């Protein structure tokens, strides 16, 4: 009742069996079909996303944005796409052909594959493997390889440099991201995406806001958006690892990039914002799909917002921010959270429902409250610390540049 | 269903290829890659034996995890050594790194 996906599945199954197919074969066909549909939908929705982003960016920058093709310029992306697909693919001399074309494919695949484990509703999920989160990490590590392949095979020093830079940054930011992925896993006690979403009677963003925030930052770096858009910093390394790509191959990179952003937003929505959960979603699973879409677009909006407002950071700052601040903070947060959670559990024996037990929000409140308190404390300390370090750094810089002014300033003070 | 010895044969073939690679490749990076192949063959064996002979206890999988750990550590240190040798002697050919003789 109510679940549109189950209905479709049942219809197709009866149709295929009616056509004389075996149960196993029919299941296999439907699985392949579903996968194809899912992948296609993800790629198709990019057309809308790109238009949306350009519109929002335009508003942020006090412009109108695309407005020529179609109403509100909504078909602008289609036109761009057509142009890209029909352009010639230029292969640089000395290029290593197999890696050169393998790279965009891997890149897109690494993004699309993630959608297999995203739960759309309480019942609909591509495949609810018991290692969903790990699967995501494993699959997205393919993307790094793709970057390296692209950079290497282009036979271009800017591409190679860009690839090195991108790999260094992606690998670095993978660390805090994976650490923060642990938070939902620890809290729900499962790596199944479905169970993680189902366990959030209180969204993890409320009990672990700092974790969600760190994840958001790491995610922004992973998808290479401003302020971390150094992977393709035109002014420094031309266009990074994709310098030599054109035409359809470039379109694939382009699509992979946007799909990556969208996918990560879906992941944030699932892991921290309760996924499909919302009022009535248990009874009417289709509602869950709508909730998920809303949540994804809220996160996506934040992503566009940061892109439109924040300037690019220097590469050494990016790296030191990750290694010297984000990773220690993430480690401290995880260790403290687990410790406090465990101690609280020992002290309040049996008053601490498991997240997976589908307890009501009221039951979860003490645990969520304690975690929230830990998060706030760690967050405040971290902000205070970074402010202190920043101030000292600025003072040093000023002292180095204008020693006199500092002395004068000291004197007047 | 696939019988156990197929997996074992695949692993044995992988291992033998790895041994050949270790012995025959010139480049040290290639040697490390061959070592990874051998470690992986061992892992396939471990998991296959776990699956077919004792699926009720997890020792095979646990061992495989430790092999992963060792592989990662080996790759990190080995490649670091290669880079440092490259810096010092401008070569990554195993044959040419033969100062330790006579």
């Amino acid at each position, binding site marked *: 009742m109510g679940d549109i996906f189950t209905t479709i599945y049942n219809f197709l199954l009866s149709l295929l069996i009616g056509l004389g197919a075996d149960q196993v074969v029919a299941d296999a066909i439907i699985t392949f079909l579903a996968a194809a549909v899912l992948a296609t939908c993800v790629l198709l929705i990019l057309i809308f996303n790109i238009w949306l982003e350009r519109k929002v960016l335009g508003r942020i920058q006090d412009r109108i944005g695309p407005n020529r093709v179609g109403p509100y310029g909504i078909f602008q992306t289609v036109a761009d796409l057509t142009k890209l697909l029909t352009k010639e693919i230029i292969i640089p001399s000395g290029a290593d052909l197999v890696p050169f074309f393998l790279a965009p494919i891997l890149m897109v695949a690494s993004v699309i594959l993630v959608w297999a484990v995203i739960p759309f509703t309480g019942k609909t999920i591509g495949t609810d493997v018991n290692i969903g989160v790990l699967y995501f990490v494993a699959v997205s590590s393919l993307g790094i390889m793709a970057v390296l392949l692209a950079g290497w095979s282009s036979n271009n020093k800017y591409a190679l440099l860009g690839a090195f830079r991108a790999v260094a940054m992606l690998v670095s930011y993978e660390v805090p991201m994976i650490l923060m992925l642990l938070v939902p896993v620890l809290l729900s006690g499962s790596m199944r995406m479905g169970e993680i979403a189902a366990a959030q009677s209180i969204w993890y963003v409320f009990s672990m806001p700092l974790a969600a925030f760190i994840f958001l930052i790491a995610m922004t770096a992973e998808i290479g958006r401003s302020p971390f858009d150094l992977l393709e910093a035109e002014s420094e390394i031309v266009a990074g690892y994709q310098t030599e790509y054109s035409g359809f191959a470039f379109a694939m990179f382009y699509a992979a990039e946007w799909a990556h952003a969208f996918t990560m937003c879906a992941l944030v929505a699932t892991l921290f914002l309760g996924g499909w959960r919302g009022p009535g979603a248990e009874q009417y699973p289709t509602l869950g799909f709508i909730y998920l879409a809303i949540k994804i677009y809220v996160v996506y909006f934040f992503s566009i917002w940061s892109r439109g407002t924040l300037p690019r950071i220097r590469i050494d700052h990016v790296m030191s921010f990750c290694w010297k601040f984000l990773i220690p903070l993430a480690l401290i947060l995880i260790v403290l959270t687990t410790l406090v959670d465990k101690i609280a559990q*020992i002290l309040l024996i049996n008053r601490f429902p498991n997240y997976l037990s589908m307890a009501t929000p009221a039951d979860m409140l003490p645990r969520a409250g304690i975690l929230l308190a830990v998060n706030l404390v760690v967050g405040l300390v971290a902000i205070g610390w970074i402010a202190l370090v920043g101030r000292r750094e600025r003072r040093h810089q000023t002292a180095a540049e204008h020693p006199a002014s500092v002395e004068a300033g000291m004197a007047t003070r | 269903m696939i019988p156990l010895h197929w997996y074992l044969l695949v692993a044995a073939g992988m291992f033998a290829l790895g*041994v050949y690679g270790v*012995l*025959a490749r010139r480049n040290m990076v290639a040697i490390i890659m061959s070592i990874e192949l051998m470690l992986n063959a061992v892992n396939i064996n471990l998991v296959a034996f776990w699956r077919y002979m004792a699926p009720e206890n997890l020792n095979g999988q646990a061992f495989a995890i430790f092999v992963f750990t060792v592989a990662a550590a080996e790759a990190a240190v080995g490649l670091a050594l290669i880079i440092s040798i490259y810096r010092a002697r401008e070569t990554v050919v*195993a*044959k040419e790194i*033969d*100062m330790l*003789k*006579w």
Partner: protein
Amino acid sequence: MENIGLIAFLIPASPLLAFFIILLFTRHSKLASDIVAMVAILFTWVLAGILLYLALTTPHLGEEPLTAGLVWLPLGDAVTDSLRMGVLVDPLGAVMLFFVPLTATMIFIYSTGYMASGSYWTEVTGEGDHDAVDTAGRKLKKFDATAWKARFMAFIALFAGAMLILSLADNLLLLFVGWEIMGLCSYLLIGFWHNRVYANQPKRITPMLAGIKAFMTTRVGDMPMLVGIAWLYSFTGTLNFREILYNPEVLEGLNVLAFPNVPALAGVTVAGAIGILLFMGAIGKSAQFPLHTWLPDAMEGPTPVSAMIHAATMVSAGVYMIIRMFPLMSAGWDGHALTLPMQVMASVGAFTALFAATIAVAQCDVKKVLAYSTISQLGYMVAAVGIGAYVAAAFHLMTHAIFKALLFMGSGSIIHAVEHGEEHAHHHGHHFPIDFDAQDMFNMGGLWKRIPVTAWTFLIGGLALSGFPFVTAGFWSKDEILADAFAHNPTVFWVLAAAAFLTAFYTMRQIGLTFAGEPRTHAAEEATQTDWRMNLPLVVLAFFAVFAGYVGVHEGFPVLGKLLGGNFFHHFVGSTLLKEPEALAFSWAPVLLSIGIALSGLLIGWLVYVRRPLQAEDEDPLKKVLGPIYTLLENKYYFDELYDLIFVRPSKWVSEQIVYLLLDKQIIDGFLHFVARFFEWLAFRNKDFDTYVVNGLGDSVAEGIGKTSDSFKYVQSGRIQQYMAIAIAGVLMLVGVFVWALFLR
């Protein structure tokens, strides 16, 4: 519950960690070391408090104690046969968990104060440069002891950690580990001032020798104990306390004859033999007669160490062990006829109690009195276990640990004060005799007004020790032992009663000599109160010395028994055993007797030493009364000299006269010399043969080998892949042989 296991594992871990941190990182800073040690012990204390709370709130702790463990040494089938290391918190363990961290924490606080000054003066013997000359004219050299003091904190942290391991251990082997670490620590700590010598007191034992003596003496007891442990393991296949002691089948199985074929030992059961072997360990550790001699000499260590060894940890360990092993000791006991180990314990304990008390009466060193008092009180506990008064022994163990730690720290405070006084007086122009001893009670007197906190707390501790009725913890625990003895074994009762009388007397003598009257020396006159870190523990422990006793007041005791709601301690600790021991019916006779004895002892002491305090240069009034006996007592029945005569000198004599001079010099050397001469002759004949025949041959062989290897050395090409190929080919050959042998043949 697993979490409890984690907490319990952390308890000994944190002082041990502190030990390593101090030794490895902070050994150059006293302050940092103090902080590390204090943090560690406070952490331990808090954890112990949590665990104690959990233990106390667990219903039926005796049947279902809090345990956790892990496989230590997997042997055979991993789960059943392995040696397991684990923790056990049953009621008895909970008692240990109460007083060990408490006293240890107090001693740590005290130590930070006691070791406050950053350098100390060490005596220089013979010629050699010196920085100063002390009040008695000794040459002194200033010695920077910061590192030493940091190390001191490390050692006592290790000591506390070991004691906690021992208290929480769930098996005899782990207990023995803690036991032996403490043996090591006692050696390290007693000999802490290992370069201190007493040039002008030749008879006085030096710290280094005292440390060796303590170590060697306890070793004498430890060896039989290890044998007992091994025997127990080979017999039962386990060392786990629960599996042995809480299991009637195992205990029944142990109750078989050990030596059926040896007529002289016909009646000895296995349990009895193991029990006696284990008890020998306790004799050494708890300083029972005849291995008691190390404990008084152990007073050469710094005073916090004395408090640690004689109150909270080491000597308690022996008693704790026999209390813990009581079911084994009493296997086959039907409540009437004592088993063999119990007889031995009862007689050794009672004898030691009286014997040590008599020596304590005639000591003049403030710490030695307490040392002998400790031996005596431990004798009480041992005797109590011996007559089956299991709970009473545990109770006295707890109260004694508290008030004896208090007394030792008080005495340390007194000595500290007098030493300060000596320095001040020296500044003001007073000179002291060359053998002036700041620990001698006859050099004190009148300290009551000068160090009031110490005096009051010392008085409380002393009254607790002597069993001042109703308001001290010592009274209740001692009374319980005496009541048990009265009901079960009158002989033991009268011996213990006599010891109790002497205890009260020498306690009052000590208080009188130390605090009452007017100062007998300038040092005592200028003694000053010490710093807060040394006073705070005294006050805390004094509180417990008064109130800790109320947990174990007999139900039948008029007024108080009702008021305090029954004998909590008895039921709690009694439930450790398989069969909870029955509480004795309340009886007036022993109570009145023990009150009378305590009060009369105190009264006599008061009459002799306090009412008319001694003046300077006065002799001990006891000397007149006792005459030569006093000298006998003062010299501790000449036990040290006796042992010297029986053991030390004969072994020295044997090793020098027989082994060295006769065997070595005459027989072996003579034979060797003969052989040597013979071969010398032979060798010269050989030389010619050698030069022409052998050398010629050898040279040519050597040259040949040299040339051959020159051509073979190129095998070592330095190419790793070549080596590997050869190695793998070799392995393959072996595998081929193997395959051929197994499959093809």
